[in-house]
């Protein structure tokens, strides 16, 4: 075991190397490229025994990944934003094939207008595809999650592809101390993939990814995917327990930070949760009973964990780093759905923040805590709010003027 300064991208690559992946189809895109660069270098230098293939697009890349996985080998691939959307059709297809590949998505705001930094409209667009989704806060978690993802994907109760998500720039290019596990420990946790169901032998022909015509047959397969994905909630618990036993690090589907006696909770995902935790610490220092709930597993959605964690709170704010245009925060809607039939449910506030990687400043967190306390006093929940500061608005006004907008 050694500890090193690694970027989120390097941490992902190390996870893949330790998982002893067999096949990697790749296509570059900022801010993901460093992952496939690291892997191709290791394979070239003989430090990793895998087949690396560059393809013409993300559409082909996901197809190749799915097809290879169907033959019974361990497969990895990675992309980001526009690349994910370009391969979108194949996400649903390979999930329907029930192939256990692992894919890292490095979140980046989706065009247009084009941008480079993170928000989660890319990965959350894929939420209905059948892939399981693990969202990471720090670089260590990225490495660890890649290992856990293979255990989940390859479990015979699941057999679905898994996404591991990290924020572009804020995590992908940020270096932090990361513990790189020993290969023997990894092999103990994640043995070689030897599927009984996927065979690639001339003497033993089989057909995969078959066509079905007709609703009843289609409904059966689609609903089985759903059940398998939901089964992931139980399997996740087993896998994370086993992970903790081997490596000593614990990752619950939903992470509570200072939640024990908290009256006011923030709900966040990914790397900006770190900023939320700092805000909770500051709020505690000024006497507010604050806490933070970080959603790590987003598909399957951990309904019961969320229900339990929100019980008895005065107010809860969901900070969506995404926007479903025409509706609002995606996770807000999902959490509201979870709470609707609960008798003892908190007030639920909606904030949209960090779009395109926009910072969420301490002042903006103060605003959220103020809003929650006001809502708790009056019983009235304010309208969904974009986190946007006066200074940012002034700068936007200046830019609009240059563009001849007023």
């Amino acid at each position: 075991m050694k500890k090193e300064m690694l970027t989120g991208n390097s941490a992902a690559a190390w996870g893949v190397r330790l998982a002893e992946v067999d096949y990697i189809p790749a296509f570059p895109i900022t801010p993901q490229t460093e992952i496939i660069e690291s892997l191709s270098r290791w394979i070239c230098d003989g430090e990793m025994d895998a087949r690396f293939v560059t393809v013409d697009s993300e559409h082909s890349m996901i197809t190749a990944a799915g097809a290879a996985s169907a033959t019974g080998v361990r497969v990895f691939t990675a992309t980001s934003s526009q690349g994910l959307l370009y391969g979108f059709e194949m996400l649903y297809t390979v999930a329907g094939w029930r192939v256990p590949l692992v894919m890292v998505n490095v979140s980046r705001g989706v065009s247009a207008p084009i941008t480079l930094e993170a928000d989660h409209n890319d990965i959350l667009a894929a939420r209905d595809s059948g892939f399981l989704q693990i969202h990471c806060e720090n670089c260590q978690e990225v490495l660890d999650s890649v290992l856990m993802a293979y255990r989940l994907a390859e479990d015979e109760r699941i057999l679905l592809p898994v996404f591991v998500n990290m924020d572009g720039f804020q995590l992908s290019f940020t270096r932090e101390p990361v513990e790189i596990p020993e290969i023997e420990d990894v092999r103990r946790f994640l043995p070689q993939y030897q599927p009984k169901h996927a065979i690639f032998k001339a003497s033993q022909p089989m057909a995969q990814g078959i066509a079905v015509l007709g609703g009843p047959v289609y409904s059966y397969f689609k609903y089985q995917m759903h059940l398998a994905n939901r089964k992931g909630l139980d399997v996740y618990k087993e896998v994370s327990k086993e992970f903790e036993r081997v490596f000593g690090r614990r990752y619950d589907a939903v992470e509570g930070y200072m939640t024990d006696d908290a009256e006011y909770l923030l709900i966040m995902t990914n790397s900006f949760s770190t900023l939320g935790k700092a805000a909770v610490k500051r709020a505690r220092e000024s006497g507010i009973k604050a806490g933070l709930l970080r959603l790590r597993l987003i598909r399957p959605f951990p309904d019961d964990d969320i229900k339990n964690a929100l019980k008895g709170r005065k107010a809860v704010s969901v900070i969506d780093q995404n926007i479903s245009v025409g509706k609002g925060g995606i996770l807000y809607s999902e959490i509201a759905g979870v709470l609707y039939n609960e008798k003892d449910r908190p007030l639920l506030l909606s904030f949209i923040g960090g779009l395109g990687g926009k910072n969420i400043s301490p002042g903006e967190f103060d605003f959220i805590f103020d809003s929650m306390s006001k809502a708790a006093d009056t019983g009235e929940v304010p309208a969904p709010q974009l986190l946007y500061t006066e200074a940012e608005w002034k700068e936007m006004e200046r830019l609009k003027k240059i563009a001849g907008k007023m």
Partner: protein
Amino acid sequence: MLRVRFHGRGGQGAKVASRVLGTAAFLEGYYAQDFPLYGAERRGAPIAAFTRISKEPVLERGVIAEPDIVIVMDETLLSDPLSSPLAGVREGCVVFINTTHSREEVRAKYKITAQVITLDITKISLDILGRPVLSALAGGVAARLSGLKEDSLSKGVEKETSEIITDRSVIEKNIEAAVHCYNAVESHPHPAPLPSRGTEVPEGEGRKTTVITVPFEPAITSSPAINTTGSTPMRKTGNWRLFRPVWDYEKCTKCMTCVARCPDGCIALNEDGFPYTDYENCKGCMICAEECPVKAITAEREVHSW
């Protein structure tokens, strides 16, 4: 927590400098985090990089708006509004500037109230490495100002340069240059001790923000389209330049090859028919010099002159 911000130009080594410091701190047992910020990558464009050093786990990410130490690796950035290396600098900060001038001169020129330390690390780099690559040297200065040990710095430079340089002697020279800068800065008064402020969050602009409700605006305003013409000249690209083309009119035959080859249309003709370039926008690609059939154009290193 100690927050260090590096300002440089793409290719100068600001990113690696932030990593040298991050690794040195990490090897010395601190929690460290480093992060570079650049947009669409290109050599010569202003970039920033950030290193956080702490005894506790770091609960911050991204840009450092209120640094304790600022390392300005290229003096020309001080007058570049897009770079603003002095943004967020308060009393008690230490600002290091790579310059040939004294700190009194620099303080007066740029009206800096914070503590200023100067050293011509470009010259040291040229003397020791033979090239103006400042990553290890700026890392050395930052390690000194952060109160890290010389040994941690050497190990940090070794680790980071080994990732990008294969020639062992060049790695050794980088260590030598970094240590030289580390000790040259020592002779300056008041080096900042490590962990200055313990607070997790700076008490500044960040906490005074007002959150507003963004109003609806019609599509003519809110679509990402530019309705005016002539805004491109507002974005000066001359500050990306590392070398400037200079014409020798004695040799020039007025063939206009340079005019035709300039990818940015910066080269025009004067009254006498000789070509000249618009230095506010010329990016210094030097294609003109490459293409000139009589070699009348030479590349001169950009030096900031007062």
